[in-house]
Structures are given as structure tokens and as C-alpha cells.
């Protein structure tokens, strides 16, 4: 991290600075009691984000920066990807995008199509996304059966045991 300007951090701070500015401006149109907190926090957020940008750009201060320990979970992936060869890097990026796309599609489609069908489809896609290396057809069949059983189990748990009204959609 050291010796390199924290571009991602600056982009993030730009996002936060604009969010803070938006909140501040929006608070001007609110009733006084509802406006006090947004105004204060919005201004503070914009200000802090600007300070962060300045700090990141000023080379003198950059050495003080260290990684936030709690971001490890998210950050580790990128660290490993850098070490891997270019092929692996592209593949790992592809897998992440598939995962994100699946989650987004899942969330948007299940009320329309039906939770059982969408979940089964999404789980199968994710199963392949999480699959590394070659596996035998028998094992593949076993995995598919487990995924199916899991979807059925949770469907029953939610719908029948906990009586949560599930959206039916076009299919089921």
C-alpha cells in the first residue's frame, strides 16, 4: 500500500463527500426537528471525506496510513489475485462477477418468477461458481441432488414450519 496513492480510497471518499453534500442540501427543505441530525452528519461526512482525500494526496502523510484490519475479509481476495498469474486473476474476477450478477438477479426476480424456481436456478449457478477443478459425473450428480434437497428443505422450513408467506410469482 505504501508508496502508492490510494486511488480507490479517494474514489470512495468522493462518493462519501457527494453523499454528505446531498444530505446536507436535502436537509435544508426539512422541518427543523427532522433536519438537525442530517445537516450535522451530512456536513461532517462531506468534511471528513474531503480531509481524507487531501491526506491521501499529500505524500508526506501517506506513510501513516495502514490497512484497516476489519476489511481483511473483503481485501484478501484482491491480495491473492495479485499474486496469481494473469489467467487466474481473470478467472477469479469472472467468478466474482457471476456471483454478484446472480445475487442481483435472484433478489429482483424471485417475487416475479417465484421463490422456489429462482432459488433452485440461482443455487445451481452458484454451485458451479464455487466449483474448482474437475469432478466426476457421479459427484456432480450428488452435488446437484444436495442442492435440490437444500432448496426443498429451506422452502419447507420457511413456508410450512415458520408459516412465512412466500411469494408464488408466475411459477412457484
Amino acid at each position, binding site marked *: 500500500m505504501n508508496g502508492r496513492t490510494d486511488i480507490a480510497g479517494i474514489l470512495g471518499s468522493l462518493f462519501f463527500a457527494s453523499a454528505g453534500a446531498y444530505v446536507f442540501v436535502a436537509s435544508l427543505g426539512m*422541518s427543523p426537528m427532522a433536519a438537525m441530525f442530517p445537516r450535522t452528519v451530512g456536513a461532517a461526512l462531506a468534511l471528513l471525506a474531503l480531509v481524507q482525500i487531501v491526506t491521501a494526496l499529500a505524500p508526506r502523510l501517506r506513510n501513516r496510513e495502514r490497512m484497516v484490519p476489519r476489511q481483511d475479509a473483503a481485501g484478501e481476495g484482491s491480495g491473492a489475485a495479485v499474486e496469481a498469474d494473469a489467467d487466474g486473476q481473470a478467472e477469479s474476477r469472472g467468478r466474482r462477477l457471476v456471483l454478484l450478477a446472480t445475487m442481483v438477479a435472484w433478489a429482483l426476480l424471485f*417475487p416475479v418468477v417465484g421463490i422456489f424456481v429462482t432459488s433452485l436456478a440461482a443455487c445451481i449457478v452458484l454451485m458451479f461458481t464455487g466449483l474448482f477443478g474437475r469432478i466426476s459425473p457421479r459427484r456432480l450428480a450428488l452435488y446437484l441432488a444436495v442442492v435440490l434437497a437444500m432448496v426443498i428443505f429451506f422452502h419447507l422450513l420457511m413456508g410450512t414450519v415458520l*408459516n*412465512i*408467506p412466500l*411469494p*408464488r410469482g408466475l411459477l412457484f
Partner: protein
Amino acid sequence: MLKKLGLFAAMIAFTAVTGAAMAFPDKPINYIIPFNAGGESDISARLQQPYFKKLTGQDLIIQYQAGAGGAQAWSVLNDQPGDGYTMMGTNLPHIIMQPMLQDPGYKTEDLVNIYMFHFTPDALIVRADSEYETLQQVIDAAKAAPGALTVGGTATNTANHLANQRLADLTGAEMTYIPYTGTGATIPALLGGEVELLWGYTTVAAGQGDKVRMLAVAQDKRHPLFPDVPTFKELGIDMVGGAYRGIAVPSSTPEEVRKELSGIIGKINADPDFIAQMEQAGFAMLDIPYEEMDAFMAERKKLYEEIARQLGSLK
């Protein structure tokens, strides 16, 4: 466990015997409460639960979907299957006032109310050791120092908030209204002395017993549980109001199922034991079945439109 098994067996036998006579309901019914547990809607649902079981042999399964003062649940009610096995608590003035003031994701007409079963009158409450013995003392104190008295209530632009404003309009007694997240949060505020008074319901006074004192209730007649507490009307202040509670079903529910459910709720509401429990808890009974709902809603709507106009001038 054995007890439970026995119960299941009895239940199955019961349904088998009565199955032919009572086609509906033949499985548990979901009863969605659009608020958190512990509020008036939840308590009345909990009290209805055993009677529903006794009457139909089926369980009433109570679930909580709190959010946006109930709007989050009401806005998705019509997406639920309309087979009669899903119903949801509804509250007045909420379901009329919310769509009037902003877009909460549903319209008042979208909700098919099948029964309105009780009413909790607004009440002005103080701690038992409070210096205020009568409403007149409060009004005098508020006039002497406008805004210096603090009165708690649930959220902003709600029945409690309106009641405070209406009292100020009618008597000139200005008090500072302090909003809390729900009835549950207002009680420690009153008992702990954070606010001097509280806009609550008769149920609050019933639940807290001799720790609190009601100064007046916004009801036509005195509440049977509190024969000594005067109504606002008796004191010359024209205030009758509070929260009404009922049940709605998804709009796709067929007509005969609506009537059937309405009939079941009506029977529960007529059970003397149930009435005794409800009144003991501070509720005031009300019976508006499905057939009379349209007229009732139209009448309430006219009333709340008037109040909404007042609120508009409040802003």
C-alpha cells in the same frame, strides 16, 4: 411431549368429525400484525388467538411485520394469496391518514377490511404522584406557561399528536409534544419523569394500574373499567377519538370467504369471556362486520379529512 401428541390427535379427530360441516378453515391462518410485538394490536390478537382455536379448531399464527407505522405491511397485503388463510390487522386512523399525507405504497381503498373489533380511546395520563389531579389544573398550568409542560406520545402526525393539537385549539393549553417510537417507549418516559403527561390510550392506564392516573378520556361515555374518569365531553371539550383496530384480507379473497372470516371474528367478539378480558385490558368493544364496513369507513374518512386539513395548517 405426550401432551402435545395427544393434542394433535385430538385436533385431527376434531377436524375429521367436523370437516364436512366446516370446510373453512381447515388449516392454520396467518394473522399478520403490522407492528412490533407488545403493542395494542399484538395484545388483542393474542387474546383472540385461543377463542379462534376454540371456535374453528385451527391455530391463528401471529406474525410481526413492523415498519413505517404499519405501512410496510399494508403495502404488500394484496400480494398475498387471497385464499382466506392470510389476514392482517388494520388500524384507524393510520390507514386513512397515511395515504392522505404521503404515498405509503397503498391506498385506503386497497385494503379490504372485514371487521373492526375494538377501539382504544385517547386519554391524558399522569403519574400517580403527579401534582395534577384534574384536566383543568393542566390547562391552567399550560396557559400560565405556554409550552413549558411536556407531553409524550407516539411519533409525529399520529392520533396522539393530533389529540395534543386539538386540545390546544379548543382550550388554548399549549404543551410541548415529545414523540416516541411507540406506546411501549412512552411508558418508561412517563413513569421515569422525563415527561409530565402522556397522550395514551385507556389500555396504558389498565396495564399500569395504580402507578398512573387518567385525567380524561376521549370517549362518548365513561369507560366501564374507569367509572371515575370523566370524558373530555363532560368537561366541555369536544374531543372523541382514538385508535380503531380491525382485520383486512388480500383483495383477491372471494366474497364468501370474507363473510365467513368476518363471521368468525364477530363470534369471538361476542364471547362474554373475551369481552371481559378485553375490557379488563382497557379496550372498548366495537362491532363493525364486513357488511357495514363501507358505511363505517366512509364516515371515518370524512372525519379524518377534516383533521388532515388541520394538520396541513399545522405544518
